């Protein structure tokens, strides 16, 4: 069984995807069509590149250490959130999700 499947067992997690460094979907699990999983992977990859670039510039302009390289990000919408660490991204329902636990688990699994 794929290691990332265990993230799907956490409360509130509806979809989890693992993507390559170019954004290509490697594997995905949960309640979503494969095409949308590929879009989610590409979106996560693009957002990560943007956020990483901005954090690099913040560090360069301010000289403050501790921002780069960034570990991940969370975007929280009205009822849904998207969380990512490394090359993993998951889609969660705000009402049920324990975000601290999800981020810890994403971090652990991203090292495998």
């Amino acid at each position, binding site marked *: 069984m794929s290691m990332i499947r265990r993230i799907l067992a956490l409360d509130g997690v509806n979809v989890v995807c693992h993507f390559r460094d170019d954004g290509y979907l490697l594997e995905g699990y949960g309640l979503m069509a494969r095409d949308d999983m590929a879009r989610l992977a590409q979106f996560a990859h693009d957002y990560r590149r943007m956020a990483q670039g901005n954090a690099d510039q*913040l560090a360069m302009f*301010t000289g403050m250490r*501790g*921002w780069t*390289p960034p570990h991940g*990000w969370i*975007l*929280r*919408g009205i009822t849904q959130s998207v969380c990512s660490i490394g090359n993993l991204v998951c889609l969660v329902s705000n009402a049920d999700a324990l975000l*601290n636990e999800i981020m810890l688990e994403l971090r652990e699994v991203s090292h495998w």
Partner: protein
Amino acid sequence: MATLDELMKLPGAMAAFEFRGSGELLEQRIAYPERINESTLDLLAHMCAANMCIATMQARGWEKVTHMKGFYPIQECTLIGFDWSVVVSGLDRERLKDKDRGKTSLPPFTGVVLANEKADYEAAFATMENPESTP
């Protein structure tokens, strides 16, 4: 609206700040001036404004393409850096937009910088989303 002083009570809080949609820093509280100063917060606010704009564009596009709902507008945006995290909320702006559409002067964004080792993202979101403190 969660006040800066409330945000400073969060575990690991290093600084809290308010900024305009353009990124301009309006007000701040700093717990460790030797680690983070006003100048750094100013640039951080500009970075957060940029990240929030891109995330909002992506959420809009995502909902249109997939027909899924619940992403737009983005309420909070979090960057987890190597040692520090920043959590930013635009929720008060969205609440005011709903109350009084067409109003041109919107409340500022609020943000908090947290040390990763103590960061509690759920607590940060709960503080920022507390409906009792809505203006």
